[in-house]
């Protein structure tokens, strides 16, 4: 793994560069293909037009010469007639004998052109016209030649030939190429420039988000990423990150609160321990006095230990490290065990502890932790219900869950406490002055953590004067 400090590869790695390169590449490819297709089509159509024209000319010429091919003067006259006022050198007619000699040429400079011969061995009627593109030594451009064989009035075979210089067609194609290349260069430049601009514009919000996110640290968690209100992908990204920040901030706030509360919670027993020790040390004490103080201090040590245990358990739960056994637990048995433990205490306090159980319902879970939940809930009920009241632990089937209720008909809790009862270190009993040590305000948080780790839910219902009901739902199992 590379260290987080190592600077990331920038140049080719950025989205901006990649976007630009891709845009340029795609534009270039499209332009090249487009120009190529146009060029080929254009060249093809030019040639096609020339070929059509030459075929017409040579056909007409062959028909004309059939009567007087043996007479060069008449042939020359026919050529001149056909050429009419055409500029010299553009179209050339020639008459060749069957052995390839040039008999008559409409233009003297074309007398020595070497052009291919049509296949005469197959007979003269085989193909009316033959085409060839011939490179002429004297010219720096090729000529297109169209040939037709015919039989003269004297019975010998002749070849009529029309040749068209391709210089103008080549010039047109060259112009086309030049224009295409210029267009290509302009298009690629435009694509690169456009790519840079578009990538820059669309990525600027990303840079803003990056910059802002860099500024947000543990000390500035309240800040949020700016939204542009466009509702596009980047706005949604920023919103998502903001929601994440919200959760992180909330979590950090709770952790801070938790740490502060925990320290506070540890300070009180420590203060008592230290104070007691100092008072005892200030004077000579009897053995009984010393013993009493030490006995008292052991209770505070137990309390400190319990807080540390509870905090560790919660921390494990927060870290997702709570390892639960997953076995079928007869929930009625678990309740019975805990009720058996608290029964005498309830009786001593004048509370009737009743159960309504069903032995057929099995919970899938960890018996030790489930007993801990029940112990916390029943202990709370016994602690707060008050003399002469009743605490009922009941269970019922609810779909694929088992719903277990610990209900008392004691004084209940004021509704303003209800939303906070599962908060860590929250105590509804700030003014409580009952017997025994106060809880440390973690019991219900731990209950919730354990129940939720089992895939269950826990909730508290209460109305002042009508007692409290804690409802725990846990997934049931067939056993």
């Amino acid at each position: 793994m590379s260290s987080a400090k190592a600077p990331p590869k920038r140049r080719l790695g950025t989205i901006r560069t990649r976007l630009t390169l891709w845009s340029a590449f795609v534009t270039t490819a499209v332009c090249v293909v487009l120009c190529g297709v146009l060029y080929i089509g254009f060249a093809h159509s030019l040639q096609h037009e020339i070929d059509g024209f030459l075929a017409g000319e040579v056909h007409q010429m062959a028909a004309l010469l059939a009567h007087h091919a043996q007479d060069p003067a008449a042939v020359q006259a026919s050529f001149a007639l056909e050429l009419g006022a055409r500029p010299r050198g553009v179209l050339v007619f020639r008459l060749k004998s069957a052995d390839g000699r040039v008999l008559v040429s409409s233009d003297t400079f074309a007398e020595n052109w070497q052009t291919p011969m049509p296949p005469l061995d197959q007979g003269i009627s085989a193909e009316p016209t033959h085409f060839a593109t011939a490179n002429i030594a004297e010219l720096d451009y090729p000529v297109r030649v169209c040939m037709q064989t015919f039989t003269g009035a004297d019975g010998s075979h002749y070849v009529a030939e029309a040749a068209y210089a391709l210089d103008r067609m080549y010039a047109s194609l060259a112009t086309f190429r030049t224009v295409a290349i210029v267009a290509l260069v302009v298009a690629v430049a435009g694509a690169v420039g456009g790519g840079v601009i578009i990538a820059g514009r669309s990525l600027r919000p990303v840079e803003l988000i990056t910059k802002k996110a860099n500024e947000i640290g543990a000390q500035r968690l309240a800040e949020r990423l700016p939204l542009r209100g466009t509702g596009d992908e980047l706005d949604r990204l920023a919103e998502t990150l903001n929601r994440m920040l919200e959760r992180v901030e909330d979590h950090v706030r709770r952790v801070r609160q938790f740490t502060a509360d925990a320290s506070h919670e540890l300070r009180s027993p420590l203060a008592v321990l230290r104070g007691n020790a100092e008072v005892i040390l200030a004077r000579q004490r009897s053995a009984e006095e010393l013993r009493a103080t030490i006995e008292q201090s052991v209770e505070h040590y137990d309390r400190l230990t319990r807080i540390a245990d509870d905090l560790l358990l919660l921390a494990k739960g927060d870290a997702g490290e709570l390892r639960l056994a997953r076995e079928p637990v007869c929930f009625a048995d678990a309740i019975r065990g805990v009720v058996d433990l608290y029964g005498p205490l309830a009786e001593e306090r004048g509370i009737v502890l009743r159960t309504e159980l069903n032995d057929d319902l099995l919970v899938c879970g960890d018996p030790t932790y489930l007993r801990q939940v029940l112990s916390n809930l029943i202990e709370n009920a016994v602690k707060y219900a008050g003399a002469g009241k009743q605490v009922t632990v009941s269970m019922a089937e609810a779909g694929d869950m088992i719903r277990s209720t610990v209900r008392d008909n004691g004084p209940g809790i004021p509704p303003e406490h209800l939303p906070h009862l599962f908060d860590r270190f929250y105590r509804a009993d700030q003014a409580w002055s009952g017997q025994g040590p106060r809880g440390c305000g973690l019991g219900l948080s731990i209950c919730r953590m354990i129940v939720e780790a089992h895939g269950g839910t826990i909730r508290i219902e209460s109305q002042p004067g009508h007692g409290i009901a804690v409802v725990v739902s846990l997934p049931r199992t067939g056993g």
Partner: protein
Amino acid sequence: MRILVIEDDPGMAGFLHKGLREAAYAVDVADDGHEGLRLACNHPYDAVVLDLMLPGLSGFAVLRELRARDIRTPVICLTARDSVDDRVRGLDLGADDYLVKPFNFAELLARLRALLRRGQTVATNPISVADLSVDVVARTAHRAGQRLDLSPTEFALLEFLARHKGELLPRTMILEHVWDLKQDPLTNVLEVHVNRLRKKVDHRFSVPLIHTIRGIGYVLREGTS
């Protein structure tokens, strides 16, 4: 009985030394792993109390080395971290028991006794303490010849005390063994149970057998100290 304590924290080592000596054990203390290993290899101890977090040679390494040299002395590990991995690792390496700091000293004593007793069967039935007799097979208890009328829970509590007669049993241990509850409820819930049991076992008789050690737990024995 000679016990070796391998513990680097002077406070911890001090009270272990004092407490164990007062429980009538001979105690040696080593304050690092190398010294502890040397002592454990050269002297026949009856048990070793080993802290897992030691400077130099860790507790795990000491344990591994001991077992590698085929020294089978029972070992109780002490650790400040209650993690399943640590516990499993310690037991895999051949530890015999495991306690998480902070622990009840009485619990350490009880576990130490259990380790030292291991192999010797204490299968006397009924168990007698003075004129109290607890029959763990018939699940009945008699005092001075009179049958005591106990609920199943009361009998379970008495049985646990009787099986450890003369031993100081911490509250947490009683809760764990009798009610299978691993968490100290911090209320006087156990006290109420013990008082009920006491009413039936002790009240009509001149010599009390169930004694409260305030702040720590209970002991079943004849005489007060």
